[in-house]
């Protein structure tokens, strides 16, 4: 199965599984199936349409920005930002209540508070990491828990404010798309699109900083500012996702699509596109599902949809997915087994014709020398059944043909045997000759040594091999 076909095949399977899962869940959660389903899926509702657009855009930009966060190895910074935003919301609410009682739930002001305290949390993590010996994971844990603790404490205070209509504040923790109004969502959608644009325009700069910070700095790129901007983008996603996904889960919108995309590609551009698609898809399906079942928290559903896509990617991803990895390792196992068998055959024939010293068998000798099971079993420490299995598959691939209770090499088999033996011996020599650099380079399973080593090195090794074979080195105990 070629890689291209595997790709098409698994993409289809993944899509079918996805649609199947989503429709099953949809059918389950909908109270009166036909009417609600039609209304939501047909996007009859203006509000649903706008909300869907908003969350999808958020999902796309979250996926794209998440790629950089992931590659910068700062995945958890989004979690810090999300948790740190909580006290900002509470403080903004309390301050507005003090100034003008009864108007505390002013969304723009709440978002401003969230932005400021989210940023403060992220900056604190950077400062603690840079200025002390505390590692970044510990710094994140400290900041995250402190801010969240503070936020929770402040929320209790908020609930004791008599005039307050504080009921909605907790929704920011887990998200509630139902509370979104079209007017706000338009602004969010535009803001998400802006974040996406910034990330796209600075694609080259961000990827450089993510790959090689020192080099970027030596070239005069403002690494600190770019890092700061990246953090600001993360804060932006967090704030925009506050109402739909919720502060606690916003990290998922950033990191899950990017991690899933890594299973599909080795190319950062393609990976970013895929992350955007996965993010958008997860957000869109999540929004639709939660619109169908009003009791489902939108944030949780969006995240779980992302998880579903992540699992599919982990399974089917054609770069790192489990199935492809398994297929490849099976293929390698088969190839190594085949090489072992042919090498054993070759060496038996070689020793039959050797008179005291090594002799390179001619094609005729290789083709007309039947080898039986006992001889083969004696060549290595392998079980009889393993050898029989290998012989069967070699016959199937017409590398060997049965010959009066034994087996002969076919012309293809002989050529492959010769190559396998040569490869094997050259690698052995390489390990001895270049012991200092060898471990990082030796790829014994490589089809041909030429694919890994330079022609020059191979010529040198061949020369040595010839001297060995000419009998200059003792090869058998009879010498």
């Amino acid at each position, binding site marked *: 199965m070629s890689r291209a076909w595997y790709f098409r095949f698994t993409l289809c399977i993944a899509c079918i599984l996805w649609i199947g899962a989503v429709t099953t869940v949809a059918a389950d959660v909908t109270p009166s199936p036909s009417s609600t389903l039609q209304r939501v899926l047909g996007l009859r509702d203006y509000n649903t349409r706008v909300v869907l657009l908003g969350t999808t855009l958020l999902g796309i930009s979250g996926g794209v920005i998440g790629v950089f966060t992931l590659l910068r190895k700062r995945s958890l910074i989004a979690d810090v930002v999300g948790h740190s935003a909580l006290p900002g919301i509470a403080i903004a609410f309390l301050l507005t209540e003090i100034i003008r009682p009864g108007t505390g739930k002013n969304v723009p002001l709440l978002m401003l508070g969230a932005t400021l305290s989210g940023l403060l949390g992220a900056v604190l993590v950077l400062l603690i990491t840079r200025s002390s*010996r505390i590692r970044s994971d510990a710094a994140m844990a400290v900041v995250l828990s402190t801010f969240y603790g503070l936020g929770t404490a402040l929320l209790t205070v908020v609930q004791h404010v008599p005039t307050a209509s504080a009921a909605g504040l907790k929704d920011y923790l887990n998200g509630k798309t139902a509370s979104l109004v079209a007017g706000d969502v338009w602004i969010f959608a535009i803001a998400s699109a802006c974040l996406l644009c910034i990330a796209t325009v600075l*694609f080259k700069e961000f990827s450089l900083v993510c790959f090689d910070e020192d*080099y970027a700095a*030596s*070239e005069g*790129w403002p690494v600190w500012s770019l890092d700061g901007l990246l953090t600001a983008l993360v804060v932006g996603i967090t704030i925009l996702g506050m109402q739909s996904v919720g502060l606690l889960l916003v990290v998922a919108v950033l990191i899950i699509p990017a991690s899933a995309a890594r299973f599909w*590609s080795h190319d950062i551009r393609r990976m970013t596109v895929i992350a955007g698609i996965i993010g958008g898809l997860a957000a869109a399906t999540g929004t639709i599902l939660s619109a169908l079942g009003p009791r489902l928290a939108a944030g949780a559903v969006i995240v779980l949809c992302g998880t579903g896509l992540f699992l599919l990617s982990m399974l089917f991803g054609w770069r790192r997915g489990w199935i492809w990895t398994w297929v490849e390792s099976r293929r390698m196992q088969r190839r190594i087994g085949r090489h072992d068998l042919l090498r054993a055959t070759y060496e038996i024939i070689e020793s039959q014709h050797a008179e005291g010293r090594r002799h390179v068998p001619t094609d005729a000798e290789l083709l007309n020398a039947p080898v039986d099971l006992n001889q083969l079993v004696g060549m290595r420490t392998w079980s009889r059944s393993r050898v029989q299995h290998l012989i069967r598959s070699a016959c199937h691939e017409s590398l060997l043909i049965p010959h009066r209770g034994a087996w002969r090499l076919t012309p293809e088999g002989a050529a492959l045997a010769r190559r396998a033996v040569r490869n094997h011996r050259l690698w052995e020599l390489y390990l001895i000759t270049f012991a200092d*650099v060898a471990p*990082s*380079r030796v790829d014994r399973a490589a089809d041909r040594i030429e694919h890994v080593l330079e022609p020059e090195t191979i010529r040198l090794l061949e020369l040595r091999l010839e001297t060995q074979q000419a009998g200059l080195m003792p090869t058998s105990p009879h010498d």
Partner: protein
Amino acid sequence: MSTPQHPDSAPLCIHDMTVAYRRRPVIWDIDYDAPAGKLVAIVGPNGAGKSTLIKAALDLVPKISGEVRVFGEPYRAQASRVAYVPQRSSVDWDFPVSALDVAAMGLYRKIGWFRPVTRRYKEEARAALDRVGMADYAKRQISQLSGGQQQRVFLARALAQNADLYLMDEPFAGVDATTERTIIGILRELRDAGKTAIVVHHDLQTAPEYFDEVVLLNMRLVASGPMETVFTSENLRRTYGGKLPLLDQVGNRMAGGQGS
């Protein structure tokens, strides 16, 4: 590109530089002027501060005191004339980019903010890969390259910059013979073009063969200058202490080299 030849415009001037990590000085009072158009090796034992010297010269780590001038000006002003080849182990080679992408990073400054890497720049990057014999591997993801090939990709990135001063951190560490030969060939090309390369080098055996000048470093500057006069067993002993078995061999070899 040419600068007037007065002492201040040397490719790299380091004056009384001290660098510390967390209150512990790593190198102190380094005073060194690199000559133009030479290949310079920085040699010293592990932990002698060789990489730190280069990073401090590039403003990558803060200096406690002292001053660095590149072609007579502060580093920031001359960054475009300097190419840095970091240690291979300093980056994550699992990063999702190809050899060509990495080589193209050397052109990012030239391409400028916000602009994408267009076909013209890709060709330039490919040409740089070709110089180090890696053109055939341009499309490979970097984790699928061997150590030596990764090192050559790093070198290609620096070459793409077309700089005047090259600072390389251990480019010969753990590479195969072909890569070693490629790098030394490139270094000589650079010298012939009148450029300067300052290279952290760990192999005392090959240092006199590959380089014109040497800086012996062990937290302080032990000696610096032309290889013939400075790379003596006496100076090496002062750099490494008495515990280096290779020392006498190298000393003999240098003595023999000067005799013939």
